[in-house]
């Protein structure tokens, strides 16, 4: 569906995209994950033929995309990061306007607009102007304007920024529903939980480069961490920390502000062994948490920084 080969985009001396490669297949919910400023939006603007780029090739549905590829653009729906609607038009009029930029047939458009309104749950707010809507409802309107014409490829650039949990869940469920209906979705976000929740395949971006691509399981298998154990423990000394690190499968031990973090390779009974050692040493401990690896662990291991740093 989308092929991006060796894409390079510079702003003066700053390299925003550094030989970026992405291959997105039809029917995927493809996640583009990375911290703010890593190049996600720049990549999407290049993909939409809005931004000039220095090098590389972009093909959508097998065709190179240019500013005048109107037929191709008709198959694409975009939900931009910033809400982009007319303040003076109400919900219904806004959706009708944007749908009208793609669909000329009035009867067909009317049906599509009604379906889009129902899809994002804005039936009760049809006559309201954008400034009368809450942040969550506004985001839903933003989505409806991008998907009303039923595109085959939907690009969503951080659609849940500043959205309440209820609206966020509704939006995420909606994205999966759109995918079920046949749309390929590119979802950019810096929220790893969202990407993990809905994306079938994920690319992690950092400093304009794609540092890893795969399903969430494949990404997690790329790293050493199989389990992370977090324990509230008091008065651990250097010798005890060294002894914990000697236990089977454990490759990293950190102790800060009475919180013990133990990273283990994949294996059985890691938690039992660590707790056994603490009891043996008569070390008092409180809350114990065992975590399977997250995308943040993947990012941390590859780049040395947290996703939200």
């Amino acid at each position, binding site marked *: 569906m989308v092929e991006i080969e060796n894409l390079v985009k510079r702003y003066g001396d700053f390299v925003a995209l550094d030989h970026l490669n992405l291959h997105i297949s039809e029917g995927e919910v493809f996640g583009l994950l990375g911290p703010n400023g890593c190049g996600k939006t720049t990549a999407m603007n290049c993909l939409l033929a809005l*931004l*000039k780029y220095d090098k590389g090739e972009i093909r959508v549905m097998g065709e190179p995309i240019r500013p005048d590829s109107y037929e191709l*653009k008709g198959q694409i729906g*975009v939900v931009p990061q910033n809400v982009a609607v007319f303040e003076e038009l109400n919900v219904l009029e806004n959706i009708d*306007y944007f749908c009208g*930029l793609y669909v000329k047939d009035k009867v067909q458009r009317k049906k599509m607009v009604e379906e889009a309104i129902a899809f994002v749950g804005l039936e009760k707010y049809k006559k309201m102007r954008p400034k009368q809507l809450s942040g969550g409802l506004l985001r839903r309107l933003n989505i409806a304007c991008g998907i009303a014409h039923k595109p085959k490829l939907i690009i969503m650039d951080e659609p849940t920024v500043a959205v309440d949990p209820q609206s966020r869940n509704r939006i995420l469920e909606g994205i999966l529903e759109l995918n079920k209906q046949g749309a390929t979705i590119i979802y950019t976000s810096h929220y790893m939980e969202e990407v993990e929740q809905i994306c079938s395949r994920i690319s992690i971006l950092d400093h304009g480069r794609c540092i890893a691509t795969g399903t969430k399981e494949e990404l997690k298998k790329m790293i050493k961490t199989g389990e992370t154990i977090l324990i509230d423990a008091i008065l651990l000394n250097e010798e005890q920390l060294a002894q914990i690190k000697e236990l089977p499968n454990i490759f990293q031990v950190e102790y800060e502000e009475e919180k013990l973090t133990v990273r283990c390779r994949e294996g059985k009974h890691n938690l039992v062994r660590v707790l056994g050692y603490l009891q043996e040493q008569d070390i008092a401990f409180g809350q114990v948490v065992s975590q399977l690896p997250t995308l943040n662990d993947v990012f941390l291991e590859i780049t040395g920084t947290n996703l939200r740093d």
Partner: protein
Amino acid sequence: MLQLFRYRILSLLREKTTIFWSIAFALILATFFNFAFSGLGEDLKSISVAVVFDETVNQTESESVVKSLKQIESKHKKLLRVKSESEEDAKRDLKNKKVKGIYYVTPIATGENPIRLCVLGSGLEESILQSVMESYNNQMRVYTTVMLEKPQKMSELMKFDYGKSMVVESTITGKEVQSYTQYFLALIGMACMFGCFIGMGTASQLQANVGALGARRCITSTSKAKLIFVDVFVAFFVQFISVLVLMAYIKGVLKIDLGNHIGYLVLIAALGSMIGVSLGMLVGSIGKVKEGAKIGILLTISLTSSFLSGLMVSSIKGTIEQNCPIINRINPSSLISDALYCVGVYEDMGRLQVDLLLMLLLVVLLYLGSFVMMRRVRYDNI
């Protein structure tokens, strides 16, 4: 396509700030101008004045003075309501504001000014009484001098009408022109220039590097050329109607004479609106300037342009014409008000054609500039 026009018109008409600056502000200003200028020289009422004669003034002389004062006219109306009375009554009337002043009359032969004035305040009416007094005293001084030095010329002098002005105000076409008409014409020029705010809004909604809405509209399957055409046409249309409404209000309701060449008035409104809108589009399409700064630039341009065309000081346009006429040839507001003057007052079609041509040239230049900026379909930076 019709749907695009419909929603653009709707969104523009619902934009309260734009509508205020494009339509309401000029209408309000025109109304204020009308209040300020109404009655100037037209509704001037006769001024009541008391005349107190010195006991040495004989009856013939006193009758002659009263007659002379009563004869003074302004715009075919008697200027003074003269009341001859005792000093005591005159002072009481002045105190009770029944008269605006007291003329004290002494015999001409004394060699002093024959009339002195006593007033209680200062204002237009008091100034007029003073002016009348000075005029009368000058006249009497001339009579006295001639009588003493060349008495044989006295009969000729008596034929001379001092009350008659030597200067006749007239236009080439012989039309009566109100001195404040210039303000209304400059106001129409300003209203045209204020179309720049509609133009700025239009540009920002067409440019991907100016706003999110512009970016969203640039990535649809509707061509940018079509979007530009619809938006620019709607912006011009709304602005054009606003200027026509203002002209109709000034001509029809405020009864300011803009002439009877409706076709030319419509043409001037159209070109003026195009200048305003295209100027706004040009400034609005500058990528990396904040909206507030753009508004500041446009306000400065439009208000300076209006000021130089005589919106605040009516004589400034003439001063510029004498010292640096090129400014009047490139200042859109001056061109618009001058074109309106040509239609309404001068009926000078040659000069009107030059004005229209210059306006057309400005339109072409401004539109070309803004199209070059807006036609971009791919940006270096968003």
